[in-house]
């Protein structure tokens, strides 16, 4: 070996072994990768997805038939026109003052037909309905607001948990290696619990409603946020910290003056991202009964009220877009 090394060191530069982009080794590695990827794609039915999507595209331009496209058009036919209004039988409502109806609403008279099986006859009855043209929209907006609040409080509680844990999980400010490892472990434990599963358990404990949703969000995202906080503290420039600590300041003061001002913009960006993400996740959490707009979505979906579902989806979409634009503006200001 040594002999060979001596030989190469004496070589003329014309004979130096320069860089080779493609070698048999790379070709072999690429082949193996391709085989593994194909196998995995087949497991996840990616091949079927490609075929069916292709069929859908062909069918959209008039060639052949496609299950996917049929599904889309079935949903589309039922979802449109989307439902903004509510129509309730007046007799079912209590305390409606006919002199002062709610905003924009009016009374509609209709005929209700009922079939009696025993006598095999139809009975007709005049029924009065209270129609609110934007009643359902109002309800959805109210639930969307609840969802945003859930996201907000989930983020707040998440910060309360992750701030102290994040500091303890920063290697250079942890009081002891044991504390450091415990804090890191705790954070990754929080991170490893998906919101939906935590929410399922919390619904059992706290019952249906936003409490379960807020806590589920807080538990999962505090793990993410705490790790970000800790990493950011660890990566802060060491010079200013050394300058203050060598002057005799204790570590909490050093943290306050030499670390916080530096990490603050990054922390704010992380918190904004987590807030945005929490709102998006909160829309889904209602599906397991943890409050927010998802509860309404799930209820309507199970009743096949796709026109109502369409309203909910539209509001979620608009909210997410608006929030994203808003937080982008805020970010530009803080950095």
């Amino acid at each position, binding site marked *: 070996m040594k002999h060979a090394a001596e030989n190469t060191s004496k070589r003329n530069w014309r004979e130096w072994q320069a860089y080779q982009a493609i070698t048999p080794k790379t070709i072999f590695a690429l082949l193996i990768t391709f085989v593994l990827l194909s196998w995995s794609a087949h497991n996840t039915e990616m091949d079927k997805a490609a075929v069916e999507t292709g069929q859908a595209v062909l069918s959209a331009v008039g060639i052949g038939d496609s299950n996917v496209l049929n599904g889309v058009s079935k949903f589309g036919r039922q979802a449109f026109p989307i439902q903004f209004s509510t129509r309730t039988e007046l007799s079912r409502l209590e305390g409606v003052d006919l002199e002062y109806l709610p905003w924009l609403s009016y009374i509609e008279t209709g005929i209700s037909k009922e079939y009696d099986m025993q006598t095999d006859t139809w009975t007709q009855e005049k029924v009065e309905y209270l129609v609110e043209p934007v009643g359902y929209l109002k309800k959805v907006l109210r639930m969307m607001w609840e969802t945003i609040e859930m996201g907000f409080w989930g983020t707040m509680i998440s910060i309360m948990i992750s701030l102290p844990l994040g500091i303890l999980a920063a290697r*250079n400010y942890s009081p002891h290696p044991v504390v450091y490892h415990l804090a890191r472990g705790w954070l990754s434990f929080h991170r490893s619990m998906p919101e939906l599963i935590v929410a399922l358990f919390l619904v059992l404990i706290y019952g249906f409603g936003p409490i379960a949703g807020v806590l589920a969000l807080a538990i999962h995202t505090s793990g993410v946020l705490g790790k970000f906080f800790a990493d950011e503290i660890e990566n802060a420039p*060491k*010079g*200013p*910290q*050394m*300058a*203050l*600590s*060598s*002057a*005799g*300041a*204790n570590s*909490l*003061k050093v943290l*306050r*003056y*030499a670390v916080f*001002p*530096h990490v*603050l*913009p990054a922390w704010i960006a992380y918190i904004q991202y987590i807030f945005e993400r929490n709102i998006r996740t909160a829309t889904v959490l209602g599906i397991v009964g943890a409050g927010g707009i998802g509860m309404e979505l799930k209820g309507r979906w199970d009743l096949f009220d796709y026109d109502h579902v369409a309203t909910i989806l539209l509001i979620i979409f608009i909210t997410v877009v608006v929030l994203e634009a808003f937080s982008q503006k805020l970010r530009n200001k803080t950095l």
Partner: protein
Amino acid sequence: MLVFTNVSRIYPDGTQAVKGVSVHLEQGEFCVLLGPSGAGKSTLMNMVNGLVQPTSGKIILDGEPLNKKNLQMIQRSVSMIHQQLYLIPRLSVLHNVLTGILPLAGFWRSMIKSFPFKDQQRACELLSEVGLKEKHLMRRASELSGGQQQRVAIARAFMASPKVVLADEPVASLDPTMSRSVLKSLKKAAQINGATVLCTLHQIDYALEFADRIIALREGEVFFDGAPSEMNSEVQMKLYEIEHEILAQAPQSKPEEAPHLEINIKAVA
């Protein structure tokens, strides 16, 4: 006032950075440390504020020997101007200066950045002494020019009314005009506050112009010690010759840099 008695330091890698240095500094003296890179200037300075422990010998500050027991007390009466300044970029100039008394400030007050009016006035006084204006007060440190940042660092160093100020190449990255004016500010602040200054420099002409006393180190030993007027061209030539000699030798390791790195890590941890 600051007395080094036969002080030596050997780093774990075997480098003997300082060999038997004995120096006696008077109160209020502006003392410049000269010498080629790796001569042990930084090591000597870092031993005064406890960043480096002497292997043997004694350092006595105002009658108190320096050791681990009274390290905190020493750190409060010795302040340092680092070569890279180490200001906090996103903090205002005023608060950067106020961090100079952070060790003495009350814990909860300091957590909400509330400093007593008396201390704020002292910070303003120091900033005006080093030539900064009121308009700079609330700017972020990162918005200032290099020379201005250097002045902020000087003001911070004098904030806690230290007995000794250590300045590690305070004008290393400044142009000649700015260097001269910064050194002037440093000397003025030292005179007003009656502090002893130990300052390393690479420019002999600045040393001759500003120093009350020059100590030149060569391979960890005192090579010259006296007033600037005694430092004739022969001594200077010899210092340069030695530098050439060292440069001519094959560079094995950089004794100055490696220990420095170790110091930083230790201090932060």
